[in-house]
C-alpha cells in the first residue's frame, strides 16, 4: 500500500468511526429530552414543600421516575407509597433522614471529573454543612436522634483497568461538626484481641444511639459485623459474614446481606436477620440477590431496593422469614421513614 493509500484509509476510518462515536454521544444526549418527560404509567410527581420533621407519617426516598423531578428527594404518605410524590428540588445519589436531620450524598460535576460531597440538611432540606467525599457515595444513615450522620463512599485506584476498590466511611456529629472522616483509624478488636491490618475496609453504619453503632468490617477476605463505640474509637467484631447491617427499631435484631456459599457468583447475597441476643440467623423469604442496606419499615418488615426498569424499585419482606416479597413502589431508591 502506498503512503497516500494508507493515509486515505486512515482518513476514511476516522470519518466512519468518528461518525459512530458522534452518533453514540448524540443518542445518549438525546435521552435528556426523554428524561424530562414523565414515563407512561409511572408514578405522578409534583413539586412541593418537603418536611423532614417526624410525626407526619411520611416515607422519603430518591425518585428515579423519568420526568423533570428525576433524582430529587421526594415524599409520599408511608401508608400510601403509590400516592403522588412530592418533589423537594434537592437531588441526591443517596439519602437518609431521622428526627429532622437529613444526609444527602451528592455528585458535583466539575470540569475534569466528578467530585462528591456529603451534605447535612435541616428539616426543610436547607444545607447546614457540607463535607467533601473521597469517592462515589453508596451508604448513608442518620442516628435516631438526628445528632449523628454517617456515609460510605467507594474509592478506586487509577491504575490501568483498575479494579481495586476500597471504602471510606465517615461519621459527623451535627451538634459540634466533629468529623471522624475515616473509621479505618478506629482500633479493631477481633475475637477479643487487638487487630491491625492494612486491608481493613469499613462500610454500612447503622446507629443504635448517639455513641453506639454497628457496621461491616472486611479484612483478609472476610466480612464481620462490628459494634462501634464513637467515644472510645473502637470497632469490636461480633459475627462473621455480615454486610450492610441495619438495626431494628427496638435494637434487638440486625438485617443484613449474607454471602451464600455455593450460590451463583452472579448473585451471592441473600437478606438475613440476626438476633443479637442469641446470635441466630433467619433467612427471609426473599430469594433474590440483595445488594443494598435494608431498612426497617417497622419492627416486622424490611424494605430494600432491587434493580428495576428505571434504576431500581423498592420491595418489602417480613423480617421473621415468613411471607413473600412484595413491591412497595417502583422507580425509587434510598428510603427513610420519618416517624
Amino acid at each position: 500500500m502506498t503512503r497516500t493509500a494508507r493515509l486515505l484509509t486512515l482518513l476514511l476510518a476516522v470519518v466512519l468511526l468518528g461518525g459512530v462515536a458522534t452518533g453514540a454521544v448524540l443518542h445518549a444526549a438525546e435521552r435528556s429530552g426523554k428524561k424530562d418527560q414523565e414515563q407512561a404509567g409511572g408514578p405522578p410527581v409534583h413539586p412541593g414543600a418537603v418536611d423532614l420533621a417526624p410525626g407526619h407519617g411520611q416515607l422519603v426516598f430518591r425518585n428515579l421516575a423519568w420526568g423533570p423531578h428525576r433524582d430529587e428527594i421526594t415524599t409520599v404518605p408511608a401508608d400510601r407509597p403509590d400516592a403522588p410524590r412530592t418533589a423537594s428540588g434537592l437531588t441526591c445519589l443517596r439519602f437518609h433522614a431521622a428526627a429532622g436531620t437529613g444526609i444527602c450524598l451528592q455528585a458535583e460535576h466539575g470540569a475534569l471529573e466528578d467530585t462528591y460531597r456529603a451534605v447535612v440538611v435541616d428539616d426543610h432540606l436547607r444545607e447546614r454543612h457540607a463535607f467533601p467525599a473521597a469517592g462515589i457515595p453508596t451508604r448513608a444513615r442518620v442516628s435516631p436522634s438526628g445528632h449523628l450522620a454517617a456515609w460510605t463512599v467507594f474509592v478506586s485506584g487509577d491504575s490501568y483497568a483498575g479494579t481495586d476498590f476500597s471504602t471510606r466511611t465517615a461519621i459527623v456529629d451535627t451538634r459540634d461538626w466533629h468529623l471522624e472522616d475515616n473509621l479505618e483509624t478506629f482500633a479493631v478488636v477481633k475475637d477479643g484481641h487487638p487487630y491491625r491490618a492494612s486491608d481493613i475496609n469499613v462500610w454500612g453504619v447503622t446507629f443504635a444511639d448517639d455513641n453506639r453503632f454497628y457496621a461491616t468490617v472486611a479484612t483478609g477476605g472476610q466480612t464481620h459485623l462490628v459494634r462501634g463505640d464513637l467515644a472510645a474509637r473502637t470497632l469490636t467484631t461480633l459475627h462473621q459474614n455480615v454486610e450492610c447491617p441495619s438495626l431494628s427499631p427496638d435494637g434487638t435484631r440486625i438485617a443484613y446481606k449474607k454471602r451464600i456459599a455455593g450460590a451463583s457468583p452472579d448473585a451471592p447475597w441473600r437478606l438475613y436477620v440476626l438476633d443479637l441476643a442469641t446470635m441466630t440467623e433467619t433467612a427471609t423469604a426473599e430469594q433474590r440477590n440483595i445488594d443494598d442496606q435494608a431498612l426497617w419499615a417497622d419492627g416486622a418488615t424490611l424494605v430494600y431496593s432491587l434493580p428495576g426498569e428505571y434504576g431500581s424499585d423498592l420491595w418489602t419482606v417480613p423480617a421473621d422469614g415468613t411471607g413473600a416479597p412484595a413491591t412497595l413502589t417502583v422507580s425509587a431508591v434510598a428510603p427513610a421513614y420519618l416517624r
Partner: protein
Amino acid sequence: MYLADARDSKRRSTTAAAPDTRPGRRAAAVPGTVVALGAVSLVTDVSSEMVSAVLPLYVVAGLGLSPLGFGLLDGINNGAAALVRLLGGHLADRGGRGHKLVAGFGYGLSAVCKPLLLLAHTLPLIGAVLAVDRTGKGLRTAPRDALISLATAPEHRGRAFGVHRAMDTTGALIGPLVAFAILRATVDGYDAVFAVSGCIALLGVLLLVLFVPGRAREDAPVVRPGLRDSLVLLRLPALRRLTLCAVLLGLTTVSDAFLYLLVQRRLGLSSHLFPLLPLGTAAVFLLLAVPMGLLADRIGRRVLFLAGHGALLGGYALVLAAPGTGLIPVILLLHGAFYAATDGVLAAATAGTVPAEHQGAGQALVGTGQALARFACSLAFGALWASLGGSTALATAAGALTVSALVATRFLRTDDEVSTA
C-alpha cells in the same frame, strides 16, 4: 551500554533502523516506527483510560452494584496477565512478521472488549470482560517493545522508549477527560463512553496495521525460535543479570496504591485530594520520559535505571520523615522521575542484551520478572503493614531497596565494563 549488540551496532545504525530513516536524515531522529507505535499507544490509552475512569461510577451509580467483588478477580487477572506476556513475547519471535501480528491481535482483543461492556451488567461478567482486556494488554506489550527496539539504532533506544512512554502517558491523561466530557454532555451516557472508547481502540488497531512496518529490519534473517530457545535465553549473562536486578529491585518497589495511601495518611492529605496523587506522578513521568531517555543514551541505561531507584528511595525517605503536605509535590516529582528513569529505560537496556530474533521473548522475560516481583512485594508489604504498621513496613522496604540497589550496582557494573563501544 548495549554490550551484546555493541559489536554490530555500527552496521545496524546505518542499514537497519527504521524504514523511514532515510540516508541523509540525521540518524539521531526518532524512527517513524517508534512514532507510529507511540501514536498507537496514545490512542489505545485514551480508549482504555476512558473506561477505567468511569467504571467505578458505572458500577455503583449506573448499575447500583457494590464493586468490592472485583478485588478477588483482580488478583487472578494479575497473575494471568504476567504469563500471557511471556506467551506474547514467544509467539512474536516466531517468524518475521510475528511482532506486528501478535501486537495487533492483542490490541484487537482489547478493542473488542469495550463494546462488550455495553452488554455486561453483572460483576462477574464485567470482571470477565476486563480479564480478556488484560489478556490483550499482556499479549501486546512484549512484541510492541520488541518492535521499538528493532526499529531503533542501539545508541538511540533510550530516547526512542522515552518518546514512546511519553506518548503512552499522554493518552492515559487525556482518556479520563474525554470520558467525563461525554458524561457531561449526555444523560447517564456510560453506553456512549464505551462506544466511543471502542471506536478509538479500533482506530489504534488501524494505526498499527497501516503505519507500523511488519518487519522492522529488511535484512533480518527469518528465524523461527522454538519455545526452548526462549527458555535458554537466560543463559545470556547480560540478560540474566538484568532480569535478576529487575526482579530484585521489583521485590522492594512498593506498589503505587500503598505508597499513595501512606503519603495521604502520614502527611495528612485531605482524602478528596487523594485522586490527584497518581495524576501528579503521571504528569512528571510524561514530562521527564524523553529527557531521561536521552540521558540514558548518554550516561548508560543501567546507571540511570539505578539512579531512578535512588530517586524512589529519596521519595520513601521523605514519606518516612513526613515533613508536611508542602513536600508532597517533591515526593511526586521523585516518584514520577523514578518511572521516567526506569520504565522505558529498562526496555531499552533489555533490547541491548538479546539478539534481534529473541527481542520479544527477552522483553517479556524481564517485564514479567519485574511484574511478578512487584506483585510479590505487594503481598509481603500488605502483610508487613498489617503486623507492624505502615511506617515500619515502608522503612523495611526502604532498607531492602538500599540493599537491592547496592547488589544491583555490583551486578550491572560488570556489564558497563564490557560495553565500551
